[in-house]
């Protein structure tokens, strides 16, 4: 009997020792604070997850016109270079000195992308709106696109002819989670019924088809795609013009204090000045065709 006790006490002591060592080890680890800005933006000096390669994350699936054309070709094919964000990434990569083959795409869920912990990609591009709250935990590039919000409805819906946000007070609206469209509904439209909130674009479509929502609010370029290819028969009932809404700027998302940010910003600025940014914006995101405005 006494022997068994001894064994147990010894084992406990061993466990304790292990635990102490483990705790001590984590104390000693190197502090990985803010990384200093790089001396230069040469590919060799960049802070990259995989040296020599630009690893870019986007959503799955990646939707047109951000990836693919507005009518749905090259859907979910960021490697094609077709679509605004896809084209932008390749332009930035070339500006930084990467060959086209050196750009590697990876897919990641929204929540994974923003959770604390190491990020196995250099930056993430999927229409992240830049907000102060978010900047507390991640870094953004300077904005690459400023969007307005649009209302999507079926033409026979009474809300399709709305001319002011007051016409939408009684509507049951839907928006995608984490978008400024949702903030826009809650802060500017302020409908009587709380808007429904969906994880993905495709759920918005299902809810529209199911008649569970009267109309959607999305950013205008996404609206082009939804009406062209996703929700059959729907139209862009209008784009919002509101002074109450903050401008909705999209930025590329980086891990906090990533030294790559200034280099990407420099590249973005060069594209803006050379007119290339405007060129791809016109190509993929700007469509003619008098969309009525809904005043705020």
């Amino acid at each position: 009997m006494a022997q068994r006790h001894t064994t147990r006490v010894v084992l406990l002591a061993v466990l304790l020792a292990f635990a102490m060592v483990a705790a001590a080890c984590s104390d000693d680890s190197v502090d990985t604070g803010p990384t200093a800005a790089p001396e230069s933006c040469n590919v060799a000096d960049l802070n990259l997850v995989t040296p020599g390669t630009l690893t870019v994350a986007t959503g799955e699936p990646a939707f047109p016109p951000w990836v693919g054309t507005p009518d749905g070709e090259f859907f979910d094919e960021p490697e094609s270079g077709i679509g605004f964000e896809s084209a932008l990434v390749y332009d930035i990569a070339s500006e930084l000195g990467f060959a086209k083959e050196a750009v590697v795409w990876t897919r990641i869920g929204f929540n994974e992308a923003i959770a604390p912990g190491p990020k196995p990609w250099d930056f993430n591009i999927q229409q992240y709106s830049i907000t102060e709250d978010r900047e507390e935990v991640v870094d953004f590039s300077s904005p690459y696109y400023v969007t307005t919000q649009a209302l999507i409805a079926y033409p026979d819906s009474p809300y399709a002819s709305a001319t002011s946000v007051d016409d939408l007070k009684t509507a049951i609206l839907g928006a995608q989670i984490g978008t400024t469209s949702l903030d826009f509904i809650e802060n500017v439209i302020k409908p009587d019924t709380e808007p429904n909130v969906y994880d993905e674009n495709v759920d918005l479509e299902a809810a529209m088809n199911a008649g569970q929502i009267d109309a959607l609010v999305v950013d205008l370029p996404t609206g082009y795609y939804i009406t062209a290819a996703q929700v059959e028969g729907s139209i862009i009932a209008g784009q919002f013009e509101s002074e109450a809404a903050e401008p909705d700027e999209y930025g590329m998302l980086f891990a906090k204090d990533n030294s790559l940010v200034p280099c990407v910003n420099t590249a973005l600025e060069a594209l803006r000045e050379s007119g290339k940014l405007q060129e791809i914006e016109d190509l993929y995101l700007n469509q003619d065709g008098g969309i009525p405005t809904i005043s705020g």
Partner: protein
Amino acid sequence: MSDQTPIEEVGGGPSLFGPPRAPRGREEGTRAALIAFVSTIVFVVVVVGAILTSDAWPAVQKQFFNWERFVEVFPDILGGFWLDIKMFLVAEVIILVFSLVIAMIRSLRGPAFFPLRALAVIFIDLIRGIPVILLILLLGFGIPALQLPGVPTGALFWGLTALIISYSAYTAEVYRAGIESVHESQRMSARSLGLTQGQALRYVIVPQAIRNVIPALLNGFVSLQKDVALVLVLGVREAVREADIYAAKTFNYTGYIAAALLFLLVSVPVARFTDWYTNRDRRKKQSVGI
């Protein structure tokens, strides 16, 4: 609560190195309790210490355990949680009745009832074979899209219906286990007294069966109380959804902690009640046995 648990039961099995074993004598019991106490303290200190000294802790604390964020998001989550509670209460009542009916149908004897029995078995097999979340998506987005006249289209309605159907299939099996646990002689006696099959079930078998499975039913309560959150996939703004929305908007997860605390606040007392009830029931049965 397990306030009557003898101290030996706590200390008797430091299960780190093997299965618990009954202590022999008072002295060993005390010593075992002491070792259990010390090892628990050491364990907690080590785990908490490892977490707090980790490099990533400040970032995690900022994103998960942020008091200002907590205060900001809590009212929304509480509102959503109230919806969870309401969904739970409505669903539970319907499930308890509906599943009992299915179980009784499945327990009917005789060749004439074969089609009914087969239907019950098919229902239970099919529904249990589909993940709950899939059932919610299928019913929630699928049926309203058919645009059948007179059929409701609400996301909440269909989400709740999917949960009720799914849980009824499981609960029916719990009831059936209860019904089968009642000794065959009970059924025979009832029949020999001239009760019909239905009457025997209703007045003799089922009352005993339910008593046998109350702990299992309560277990289902705890499970459902949390699973109502699954209707969030249809866009329903319950507690977890509100936390999701806040996290997506601010990249801060404190809302999830707030939601978890609220769920615990309800489910832990139910779990304790289940244990208490099970113990009481067992003691009662044992005292009858003597």
